[in-house]
């Protein structure tokens, strides 16, 4: 697993330790890229800042909350039309975004009075919303505005409201990951334990590190409800502010994205004795194992198995239709964060694609340990790549498709590499059994798009063929397949609905007869 030096980065020798190639027989004790370090000046990192990590990644998916940034209006850039952490309350949290609009005069004279005015104005503009989070920015941190004092003053004057203050200015860490840490710890210090929830089940969990990208959380919630489990809170996708104040009452923390939210899990473990179980929500086998583990924990594994059997029978023939057509395609898995390791092995095993490269923009070395362990030999692993390194890697690896964010994705298109949005998805959700088939369908559509085939023509020198007729994806994908696969009666393309979430929101769930509880299971939160 030697370090890999990019030609474009030869003038930046520090970059050499940020990329490795996974060699045959090599393990994690032999080489691992550096990670979570200060950005090297001049490399044009694609990272976000610590404010972005706290506000845009972790905080804002909370749904019934006014999210107010105390700073310049430009800090609120990332909301509706970029983020897709939807909610079941009409997407209030991304439909509106709020900033105090700090200017030079506020930097000189202070902005606390303006902050108080803004808070009251926002609550009056949305009288049904009684909860607020206030995010510090670089500007308000540098002048030392006491946001907590202002929030306390407002809460005294308006006792019906509750306000959470998050001090995570942009410079609060090397990347957005520093902000994940700060908001996790701030939330448990300020808010957890300040409300007592209604417990409605013998089995109570917090679902942590899940942001409801295009409905991911709601898909998983459906499985948990079908098992008779009460999801006390989701940190933070589609999560309610008050539910998240009651996290201390769960029996178990189920953790999906470790590095964005393991901090709060670890604190809940230490302070309240609630154990942490890491799960995968992507892919048939990992998801099945996850549901089974949660079932085993509570002694209700037969309920998990019933879901696994039903969903596998329904969706596996559709996944396999795509697997036959995606087998051997090369993928650059460049998602930025946790999909690095959630997807690295399972897209290979369940969709047949070859992962030729993994990267993370803001991940820690621990994230890369997971990704490298799971990807295949020969894969190029890159920490915090820049645009030129990305271009060089794609020219070297020649992937058939890239899974990444929209900025590097648009760059990839210039090299005629189709891209799939790994952050916000193309047509998600991708979690769950059906979601995994939707993902396979989107990959298939990206690779075999007839329109995309045209991009391989260079109109500056290639002759435009006039003898080529109309083609479909199916004609392209099936050209090399055997008769038995092409005409298989057992396999079929995706048959789900465009919107697979709306029906879940109206669904009713069965009541389960009480079961004898395992000895360790005391009343929720009693630990």
């Amino acid at each position: 697993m030697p370090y890999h030096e990019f030609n474009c980065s030869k003038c930046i020798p520090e970059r050499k330790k940020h990329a490795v190639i996974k060699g045959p027989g090599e393990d994690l004790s032999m080489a691992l890229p550096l990670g979570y370090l200060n950005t090297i000046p001049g490399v044009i990192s694609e990272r976000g800042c610590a404010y972005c990590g706290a506000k845009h990644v972790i905080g804002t998916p909370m749904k019934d909350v006014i999210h107010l940034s105390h700073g310049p209006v430009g800090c609120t850039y990332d909301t509706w039309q970029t983020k897709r952490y939807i909610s079941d309350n009409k997407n209030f949290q991304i439909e509106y975004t709020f900033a105090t609009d700090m200017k030079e005069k506020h930097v000189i004279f202070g902005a606390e009075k303006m902050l108080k005015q803004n808070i009251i104005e926002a609550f009056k503009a949305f009288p049904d919303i009684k909860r607020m989070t206030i995010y510090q920015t670089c500007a308000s941190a540098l002048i030392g505005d006491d946001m907590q004092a202002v929030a306390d003053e407002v809460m005294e004057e308006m006792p019906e409201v509750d306000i959470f203050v998050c001090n995570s200015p942009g410079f609060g860490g090397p990347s957005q990951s520093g902000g994940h840490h700060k908001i996790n710890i701030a939330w448990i210090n300020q808010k957890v334990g300040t409300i007592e929830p209604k417990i409605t089940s013998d089995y109570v969990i917090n679902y942590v590190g899940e942001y409801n990208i295009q409905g991911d959380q709601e898909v998983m919630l459906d499985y948990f409800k079908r098992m008779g489990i009460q999801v006390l809170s989701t940190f933070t996708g589609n999560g309610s502010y008050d539910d998240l104040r009651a996290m201390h009452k769960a029996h178990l923390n189920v953790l999906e994205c470790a590095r964005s939210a393991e901090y709060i899990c670890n604190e809940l473990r230490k302070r309240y004795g609630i154990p942490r179980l890491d799960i995968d929500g992507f892919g048939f086998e990992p998801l099945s194992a996850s549901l089974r583990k949660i079932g085993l924990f509570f002694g209700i594994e037969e309920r998990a198995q019933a879901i696994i059997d039903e969903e596998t029978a329904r969706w596996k023939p559709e996944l396999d239709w795509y697997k036959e057509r995606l087998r051997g395609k090369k993928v650059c898995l460049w998602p930025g964060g946790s999909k690095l390791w959630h997807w690295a092995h399972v897209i290979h095993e369940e969709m047949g694609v070859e992962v030729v490269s993994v990267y993370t923009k803001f991940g820690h070395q621990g994230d890369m340990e997971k990704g490298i362990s799971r990807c295949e030999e020969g894969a190029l692993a890159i920490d915090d790549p820049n645009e030129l390194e990305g271009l060089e890697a794609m020219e070297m690896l020649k992937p058939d498709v890239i899974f990444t964010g929209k900025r590097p994705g648009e760059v990839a298109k210039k090299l005629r590499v189709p891209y799939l949005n790994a952050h916000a998805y193309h047509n998600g959700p991708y979690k769950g059994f059906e979601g995994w088939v939707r993902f396979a369908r989107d990959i298939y559509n990206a690779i075999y798009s007839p329109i995309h085939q045209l991009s391989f023509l260079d109109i500056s020198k290639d002759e435009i063929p006039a003898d080529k007729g109309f083609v479909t994806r199916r004609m392209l994908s099936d050209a090399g397949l055997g008769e038995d696969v092409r005409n298989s009666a057992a396999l079929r393309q995706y048959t789900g609905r465009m919107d697979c979430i709306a029906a879940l929101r109206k669904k009713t769930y069965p009541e389960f007869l009480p079961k004898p509880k395992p000895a360790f299971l005391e009343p929720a939160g009693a630990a």
Partner: protein
Amino acid sequence: MDDLTKTRMDQLVDHIMKKCLWQFHSRAWDRKDQNAGILGKTTELLCGDKPKTDTPADRCYWVDAVCLAEAYKARFEWINTLARDEIRALMKAVHERMDFLTVTGSLNAELTDQHY
């Protein structure tokens, strides 16, 4: 360690490194606890013993151990032919190797960082 034992140990370790997540907690002490808790209970299950599950933490270790023991039995049929002492010796080697890969031999400089 003889060649056969090493081959078997590598297979068991590879399975954990590729399929599991519990070995990668972010602190060195936490990884040691996870390895000891889960691999200890996996050994007991493979030997036909009944591990303790009377605390939430034990229950959590046990859950991952059940899944691991089931996977080992299904994927590596030779494990079903081993005697209890052989299983214990093999799993001890797996435990030592996991501690090396994830803790003592790990290049992850953040494992002992106070400000992780």
